[in-house]
């Protein structure tokens, strides 16, 4: 697969005609309807919409965490829509970083250990502990490496999650409402961290938000309403 990535010069990620239908008993819910998006390398895209608009559902399809009902997902030109879970898992580990709304760190591990776990699994960094320390330094947490999640603030935990998403040099980082549970100061720090990564390291970032103020951090905006793309935030 790597050879294809090397030869491909187009966008990093493209979805075509993506739909997702959830079944709740006899009722069908159209969470996404015929959504098509292209994500170019180095972009900072914000998917915006009100609660229930389908923005998190879209991010999960993009992040290969869920399977769409129809449509296709192309990662650097390769169709990854129906890949088996084992291969998807490897793709997520190698090429995608994911930051959850709730900090989602492993409570028994320190910040450093939480960060280097994916690197340990992938094995692309010989000195993964040093690499983990470096990324923690990048997000401003070099002083908190040996603290466990319960000893960190919400904002710090979220920045550890960003560092974890970053450790394997992903092509894209997905962040699902990363500031939803944070106070204003922490939220700003987290968003600034993502912006810095995008600006300085040219990491492609796709994040979801329902807060119109977050528009300022994005280079591109995608608006969703009732599972469909719309032209502006309503």
């Amino acid at each position, binding site marked *: 697969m790597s050879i294809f990535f090397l030869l491909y010069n187009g966008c990093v990620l493209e979805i075509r005609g993506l739909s997702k239908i959830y079944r709740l008993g006899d009722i069908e819910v159209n969470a996404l309807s015929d959504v098509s998006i292209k994500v170019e390398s180095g972009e900072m895209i914000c998917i915006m919409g009100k609660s229930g608009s389908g923005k998190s559902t879209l991010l*999960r399809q993009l*992040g290969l*965490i*869920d399977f769409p009902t129809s449509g296709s997902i192309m990662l650097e030109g390769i169709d990854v829509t129906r890949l088996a*879970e*084992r291969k998807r*898992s*490897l*793709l*997520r*580990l*190698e090429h*995608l*970083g*994911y930051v*959850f709304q709730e900090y*989602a760190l*492993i*409570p*028994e*591990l320190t910040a450093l*250990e939480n960060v280097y*776990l*994916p690197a*340990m*699994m*992938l*094995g692309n960094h010989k000195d993964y502990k040093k690499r983990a320390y470096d990324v923690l330094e990048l997000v401003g947490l070099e002083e908190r490496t040996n603290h*466990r999640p319960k000893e960190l603030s919400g904002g710090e935990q979220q920045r550890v999650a960003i560092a*974890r*998403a970053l450790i*394997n040099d992903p092509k894209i980082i997905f962040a699902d409402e990363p500031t939803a549970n944070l106070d204003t100061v922490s939220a700003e720090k987290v968003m600034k961290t993502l912006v810095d990564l995008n600006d300085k390291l040219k990491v492609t970032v796709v994040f979801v938000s329902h807060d119109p103020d977050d528009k300022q951090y994005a280079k591109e905006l995608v608006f969703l309403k009732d599972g469909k793309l719309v032209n502006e935030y309503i």
Partner: protein
Amino acid sequence: MRFARAARVAVFMAVKSIVRGNYGILLMTVMMMVLVYLNLIFTPSLLEGVIANTNAKLVDTLTGNVAVEPGRDKSTIDNVNALTEDIRKIKGVEAVCARSRIGGEIRSGDENGNWDVYGIDPAADKKVFKTSRHLIEGKYLGPEDTGQILLGAQIAGAGKKGIELYGDSLKNVHAGDKVQVRFTNGVKKEFTVKGIFYVQFIQADLRAYITEKDLQALTGSKPDTASSVYIRTRAGVKESKVIRDIRRTRDDVRFKTWEDRAGIIKNMTDSFVIINDILRIVALFVAAITIFIVTYVDLANKRRQIGIQRAIGIGSQAIVASYLIRAAFYAVIGACLAVLVFLYVIVPLEAKYPFHFPQGDVLLAINGKFMARNGVILFLVALVSALVPAERSISMAILDAIWG
């Protein structure tokens, strides 16, 4: 390489989870494993102790390791002195003795009964059998004794109302008392009870012994004959080898090993083996269900965490393996602690306050191979029991795992 990395991650997650997890839960789980393992080995050890005790008493009081009996259509063994001398020379034989049996009615006051009376050479008999170590009253027979009799507790009664056949015994005969014996040939004689033995093995305690010299004088039996010859072999010597060697010199006798003579005891042993197997299967089910529940509850609590691990690309096999390692850890630590508790608490305690069976006080048998085998079984059961819920948890869709 990928497998090695997954294994490394699995070990890492398992170790961190154990070291930094909830110590209360860890302690409870290990304690449960200790109980499960003790459950696996305690009753079988007790039953094995009963079997070993019964077999030992059979050898030590009734049969020796090998019994030589008269040939077909004969009631006695001839040239017994030469035979015992020959047997004594065989490599692997520790001691040999001859016994002559005659029936007799023993009476004391109004109480009487019919029991087997044996004529023995006390010195030789003492080397083969351990009856002399179980005297509860008086002394053992001496080679020159005449008019002296040694009674089993089930014959004498000795005022011990708790013994199994007290109702059929002479009830209150003690060392120094006089009893009348009427042998099956009609001869009647009064004997002084020199001692009373209580082996706590009914078949042995239903016997009476007088000296061979007395028996010959009273019954007029042919000298240099005996009903049976008993052999004690050295530890580790096969009975079949001794029998083969004797056959080279004598072909007019038959042989029985102690196992051939076990009879009812063998049936009991077989039943114990079956009971043992049933109890072990039940204990293993308990172990399996315990570990399954522990893992299942743990996985249920960590469902979201596992979903997140999968979402960030941690391989399912590494996650499953981490749970298997933890289950293996619980089983190994539990089994090791249980072995220590068994060897250094339960066994000494049971030895101090032993269980009382009809065969006597029973000590728990310590069998290293058996304990190791059960440790391995517990280990495998733990792995399988953890594998089922762990596999189930990773077969769930990631979204369902994270958000329910």
